[in-house]
């Protein structure tokens, strides 16, 4: 494996990893609030799942960038 391939792999890892960090931070805060809301109103469960799952798009976009990095470079 040459240095270029290694750098591509590091870049792909960073794309997913940093996106996952941001997604995790957001999900943590939303999740805490969502659990509080569900405790008060159980009928909010569906919306809570939705709200918690929304920041996951960040990591999916990170995954897309990582995949493009590997496939195109």
């Amino acid at each position: 494996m040459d240095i270029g391939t290694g750098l591509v792999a590091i870049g792909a890892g960073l794309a997913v990893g940093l996106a996952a960090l941001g997604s995790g931070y957001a999900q943590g805060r939303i999740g805490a609030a969502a659990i509080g809301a569900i405790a008060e109103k159980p009928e909010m469960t569906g919306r809570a799942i939705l709200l918690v799952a929304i920041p996951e798009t960040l990591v999916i976009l990170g995954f897309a960038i990582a995949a493009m990095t590997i496939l195109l470079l």
Partner: protein
Amino acid sequence: MARVRVIGPKRDLVRAIEELHTLEALHLDVVGTAVGTGLASVPEDHGRDRHRGELSLLLVELDALLSLVTRPDRPTPVGGDQVPGSIDASAMRSAIAPTVHEVEARVRELEELEAEAVILPRYVQPLRQLLPLVPWLADLSDHDLALLRLDTAALVLNLENDTVLSRLRAEVAAELGERFELVATAVDENTVGCVLVFPHDAGDVVSGLLGREHVRHVALPVRYSKLSLKGAIEAMEKRVRALPAAIQEAQAAVRALVSPHAAQWQLYRTAAAAELEQLDAIRLLRTTDRAYVMEGWLPRNETGRFREELEQRLGGHVVVEESKPARDDRCVPVLLRNARLVRPFEALAQFLDVPRSASLDPSLVMAVFMPLMFGIMVGDIGYGVILLVLGLYARRRFAHGARVLRDISFVLVAGAAWSLVFGVLFGEFFGDLGKRLLGYDWAVWMYRPGAQALEPLLLFAIAIGVVHVVLGLLLGMWQSARFRESRTLLDRLGTLLVIAGLFVVAGVAADHLPETAMTPAVAVAIVGLVLVLSLHGAMGLMVGPLELLGALGNILSYLRLAAVGLASAYLAIVANELALAGPIWLGIIVGTLFHTLNLALAGFSPMVQALRLHYVECSSKFFEGGGTPFHPFGERHTTGTGPSRMVEQIT
């Protein structure tokens, strides 16, 4: 749904309410009081209000009592046939009163025992830690201490700051000089356990000191406070060991007290709840001098049967009128009716919200796509078989249980079936275990973790996304056309055009489509863009592009189908690698552990991801929430599922 108006002579009002209650068919709604109709609310009645208050109190008491009976012993709520004309709430409360007092006493005992089981171990731990610090004291029996004319006090201090202990020592020294011994040990961050040994004749002084407010202490329970340190610990530990049995005994005593009456109380509860519902219904109806008018909602195909049934029950002294609500009437209650295979997805669809009246029910779309997406993400024969077995077991286990559990187990079975299909397509059996055992790649389509599979896998995920989002947009357009919402219709059309144009452009750029398609594609995208921008007026330049980016982001979001699937496949491969790294017995343990973890993730994560894709990416294109669920008057939740009895009969 049809708006139904029931009109009859005022003298039959009470009977009519009772009959409607037992029919369990009509969703009652408030009657409008248009000027000139002569309709008026039923006048307030203090007697009726008092009766309502008594019934509410009775219901609270009965609910509290019945909650003490464990589920297997709890009688099933009876149906709505036993609707009395008028029940005597006071007599019922008097009937249950003797048992209530006895139950309250038993419950208090039980609560004290449970509190003791929580608190006592907190004393034992610090005292155990103190024991080695005063071995000479620990060896002295209660009798020896009495002979030496010494007393001990065991304390658990909740420290507010570090000076509390030194202040306590100084204050005891000020009173007793050197005639005491105080040893202490930290139990945790804010708690210190102490033993104070002092002359018997200084008992009052020490009690006074410990009673002062600035020395916050938690004294031992009275029954242990006179014992020696060792004696107290032994007595407490013995008590801690005995408490679970004592609690069980107390619980059994409560159950034994309640169980013989539970069936009768359940009948009381049903009757009281029915009476209360009928009293509440009076607020919704209207009367003239001689007639009553009730209004409500009913599935349109059931009005004929409803009319016949009510006329028969009320001896023909009733008129049932039917009218068709306006399409955009948001007050119409919603009753979802789907085919048997789609019904389990109704609960999942309604997790988000109840669809608005006359709007599209997303259950069918979920029934088609959700198991498919689940299968794409899991995509493993081994996991699929296990999930299928678990799902079938859950369906049997919850056959008579809560509907939501049965529904979720059905969804799991459907998802597991698709997992088997994609397991064959991807050639995965517990990751690469099948490939290792057979010695060759047996994937019908592509082996997901393979280097060549990434690109087709991503394209496949995007393709699913395009189909799903475009379907959502088409359904949204159809719905907008039905509701005559032209702006929404054009907005969705514009988004659709832009998406179509951009994907054709991407196809041409990737050499998958002929170059001749480029110009029409760009034109279509521009037309769509202009359409979206123009619809938002001055804000269009900002809002329009954001909406389009959101739609494209929605499609890219389907990449999670590939991402979650790949993560699952790689975790399975890691499990196999680790299993083969050591001796076979260790390998089996490690492999089982990792595959179980992966299976647990496979059962949960794809379900949540598939739900999210439906809620956010697809349903948002057509789903309109804010509907009111259809609840027939007098509906009993005896079975927990399905339509009401009347509706069941009719259908």
